């Protein structure tokens, strides 16, 4: 009997390059399975964060349970687990994939395979998932389904001949996809009678229920009252509620058994007790060994985060802790800046990940933040034989103590149409890239293989790539190695005082340019003071660029029309408000936004 239940379960995800139509396909599948009325149907059901909707990308993996009446007359339970598409979120893709038995690969019929398509397919194949392709956007005039099929077979090496040809937008071919899920995705094959063994693939903190644990049951079953143990942390808790994922809501049920995907709550208050990737088992009847879990992602990009209002430091800490529960790849530790006060050094998977976290902190937690220049992790070998991993430029030891420094290098694959090869190669050259090879996929498209220093791509590489290829190039990278490099710390001095929050590590070949640009931009951001304020960029003790903010000579309301005092007072209040937002560095008042604007602008060319 129990075997039968698993036979009718399909756990899968959809992988695709950004914009190839993953979310739209998910929506159509949800519609076709009739789980929702049209009224409930939001435009993109899976992407329920504002931010995702605005950027059109999926950030946070989520799951939904669908009921499908197949052509064979049976009712199937589909657990569709959403995965993020961007390169920064490989880690999250990984943990989503671990809960699946198969994957649908969506490829755009007009664009063919892109860099992230490859990256995600390889991740799925590494997890031993069954992958079948569907060709999307066949309604567009420029669709070339046959060519794309050939490409999939040649480049990825999976069967594509009978791939469903669909238009998720128009609702064409969705039935085919659903049938293919039944036919091609293997059913789970866990042991329903064995000891509980479940993988935590995500979690969410709810202030009423505590931690909501998203899990895939491999063996056994879990129900209200089950006493569970997290194998890595050793935490024990009694299950209060189990359920599955409706569209955008949690639907309680009696039990989850082998093969199922769902959630449980157990009044777990400490966010660290239920780590994503851990295995859940029964306290009294534990399984032999935990599931393999998956490789924990290492943060690659770091920056300092400070509350604009110092009093909100504890709020920032709470917010980071909560976000970390949902996003184990987020790293943070307290740090202090002379310029910005108390804050945190935070580590991210990439720049997009950083932006997403910043926006979530500001929107969901209503925090006003100042972030320092993003940097990568440098290895600093000291003359005394020790090595430090440098995440904060301020901690760079004195030059006399440094034997050598190493910076992270990534292997990058850039997929581009041949007409743009020249300009993309030039871009990589400017970014200190090392050319490895060019691989032609077809006559007009090629993959460029480059090795690039990570710190050259964390700012604006992606934007530059897009603009130099009219949007056609796609890009993926992975950390390769550390290499020795001639790096220096650039200090920015305002009125002769170094501003620690603005220091950054830079390759000697770029130092002059970056320093000059920072000074120019800072000049526009610092309001005039009562004296001339020099702004300088320095490497070691040497000044390499300078600008001056001329002193304020006039700040007076010449004609103050007598009676109307409130108008004058409003003016002064505004001015006073402005002063409050100032950070005093040395004896110069710098608006907090200045830090943010300068750092943001630094990404420009």
């Amino acid at each position, binding site marked *: 009997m129990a075997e039968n239940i698993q036979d009718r379960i399909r756990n899968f995800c959809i992988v695709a390059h950004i914009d190839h139509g993953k979310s739209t396909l998910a929506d159509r599948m949800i519609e076709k399975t009739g789980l929702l009325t049209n009224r409930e149907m939001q435009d993109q059901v899976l992407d329920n964060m504002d931010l995702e909707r605005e950027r059109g990308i999926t950030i946070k993996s989520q799951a939904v349970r669908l009921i499908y009446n197949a052509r064979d007359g049976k009712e199937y339970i589909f657990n569709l687990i959403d995965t993020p598409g961007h390169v920064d979120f490989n880690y999250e893709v990984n943990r989503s994939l671990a809960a699946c038995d198969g994957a649908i690969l969506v490829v755009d019929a007009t664009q063919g395979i892109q860099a992230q398509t490859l990256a995600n397919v390889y991740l799925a194949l590494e997890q031993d998932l069954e992958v079948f392709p569907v060709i999307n956007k066949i309604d567009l005039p420029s669709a070339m389904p046959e060519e794309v099929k050939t490409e999939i077979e040649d480049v990825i090496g999976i069967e594509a001949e009978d791939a469903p040809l669909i238009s998720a937008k128009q609702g064409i071919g969705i039935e085919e996809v659903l049938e293919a899920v039944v036919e091609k995705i293997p059913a789970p094959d866990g042991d329903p009678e064995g000891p509980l063994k479940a993988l935590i693939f995500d979690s969410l903190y709810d202030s009423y229920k505590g931690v909501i644990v998203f899990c895939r049951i491999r063996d056994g079953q879990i129900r209200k009252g089950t006493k569970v143990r997290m194998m890595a942390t050793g935490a024990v808790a009694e299950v209060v509620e189990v359920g599955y994922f409706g569209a955008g809501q949690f639907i309680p049920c009696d039990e989850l058994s082998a093969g199922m995907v769902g959630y449980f709550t157990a009044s777990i208050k400490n966010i660290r007790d239920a780590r994503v990737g851990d295995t859940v088992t029964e306290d009294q009847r534990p399984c032999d060994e935990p599931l393999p879990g998956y490789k924990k992602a290492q943060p690659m990009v770091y920056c300092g985060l400070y509350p604009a209002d110092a009093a909100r430091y504890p709020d920032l800490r709470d917010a980071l802790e909560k976000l970390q529960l949902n996003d184990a790849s987020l790293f943070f530790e307290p740090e202090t800046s002379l310029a910005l006060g108390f804050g945190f050094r935070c580590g991210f998977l990439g720049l997009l990940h950083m932006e997403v976290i910043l926006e979530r902190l500001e929107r969901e937690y209503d925090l006003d933040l100042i972030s320092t220049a993003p940097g990568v992790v440098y290895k600093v070998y000291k003359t005394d034989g020790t090595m430090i991993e440098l995440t904060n430029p301020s901690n760079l030891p004195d030059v006399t103590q440094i034997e050598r420094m190493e910076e992270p290098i990534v292997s990058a694959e850039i997929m581009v149409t041949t007409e743009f090869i020249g300009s993309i190669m030039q871009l990589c050259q400017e970014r200190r890239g090392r050319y490895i090879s060019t691989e032609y996929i077809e006559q007009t498209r090629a993959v460029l293989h480059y090795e690039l220093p990570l710190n050259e791509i964390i700012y604006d590489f992606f934007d530059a790539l897009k603009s130099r290829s009219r949007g056609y190039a796609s890009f993926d990278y992975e950390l390769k190695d550390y290499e020795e490099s001639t790096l220096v710390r650039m200090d920015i001095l305002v009125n002769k005082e170094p501003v620690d929050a603005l220091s950054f590590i830079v390759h000697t070949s770029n130092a002059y340019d970056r320093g000059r640009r920072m000074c120019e931009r800072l000049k526009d951001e610092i309001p005039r003071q*009562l004296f001339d304020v020099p702004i300088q960029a320095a490497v070691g003790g040497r000044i390499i660029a300078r600008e001056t903010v001329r002193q*304020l*000579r*006039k*700040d*007076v*309301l*010449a*004609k*103050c*029309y*007598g*009676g*109307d*005092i*409130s108008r*004058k*007072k409003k*003016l*002064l*209040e505004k*001015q*006073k408000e402005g*002063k409050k937002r100032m950070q005093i560095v040395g004896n110069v008042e710098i608006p907090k936004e200045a830090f943010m604007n300068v750092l943001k602008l630094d990404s420009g060319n």
Partner: protein
Amino acid sequence: MRKISIYIHIPFCIRKCLYCDFLSAPSTPDCIEQYVRALEAEIRFSPDLNGLTGAGIPDHPEIQVDTIFLGGGTPSLLTPDQLERILTTVRESYRVQDGAEISMEVNPGTADLERLQAYRGAGINRISIGVQSVDDAELALLGRIHRAGQAEKIFREARQAGFDNINIDLMSALPGQTADRWEQNLRTVCEWGPEHISAYSLIIEEGTPFAEINLPPLPSEEEDRLMYHRTQTVLAEYGYQRYEISNYARPGRACRHNCGYWTGHEYLGLGLGASSLIGDRRFKVTASMPEYLRRIRLAASGRCCGPDSNSSDSNGPELSGLDSYYEDIQQLTLRDRMEEFMFLGLRLTEGVSEAEFRRRFGNPVDAVYGPVLARHTDGGLLERTGERIRLTEKGLDLANYVMSDFLLD
């Protein structure tokens, strides 16, 4: 004895100047007459409405008006008869002190000897002439309706009409103006010999045509300051002393009405959009003409307006009447009053009196503003004589910067 000032707003002009953001608009004689009637009514009910009917009541200090100021717009659009009626109504409703300063603004394009004589006869004893510039090109640029020659003529006629207390308004930092050109304007006017000169720099206000149109380049901040500093030197040469950020006067001729604003003197504003400070309340008359006329009708007919003003409950008729007639009523707290005392008082070159601060607020000024005072004294923007606190030369240039620090958290 309680002294108050009266401000009367005349919101009409022949044509709006291109830089002007005051409450005024072109109008017809009929409309002006309708407004003057409303104003007369307002003056009549204003003592009751504002609790200023103290005269004769035991324990109530006698109230005297010590200054009256008619501003605009262009008050000189009023016919002598209209002006006479307004001032007569004020005298019938309030006790106007002997020797009260009674000023009005005069636009050189709207007056002549006959009119000035009539104004003088009605009791006006100080006029302020909006000359702005004595260069025809600059006047045209500003959109003024008069020419330089007219301004000088009006000044002479004012003297002839018997005015011995005259202010000339001049504007510096005009588009394309140089410091030398400005000095020329100053010297020309000084030669006329007015008692008072207001010399302020042009401010381009949002919403005015000046903010929209293409103008010759404005003088740089350095030039603007050079003009201000030269103003002081040149005017000093002719015996004028700076007593406020933009105001200069011969000894004893500072504008008493204006000084009142900076020293917390009570004033009652009458007419469209006028602001008042009575007791420890600030409030305004509506800035909408139809609404103004409606409220006047209501208030004049029933001595009240608004739905609950007839009720004699604990609110007291005074407050409910005030409430329904005025707008933006603000009850000043101790904090507001201390802030205002400082940031308004510092507009005067003599600054604020430490003893007066202590008398009014019960605390030495250092107990409230110690750190701010120390910072700006050290920074050379404020100076303390022991008795007074005032802005230094440099502090006057950066007045807002200093004043905003006197707002309390």
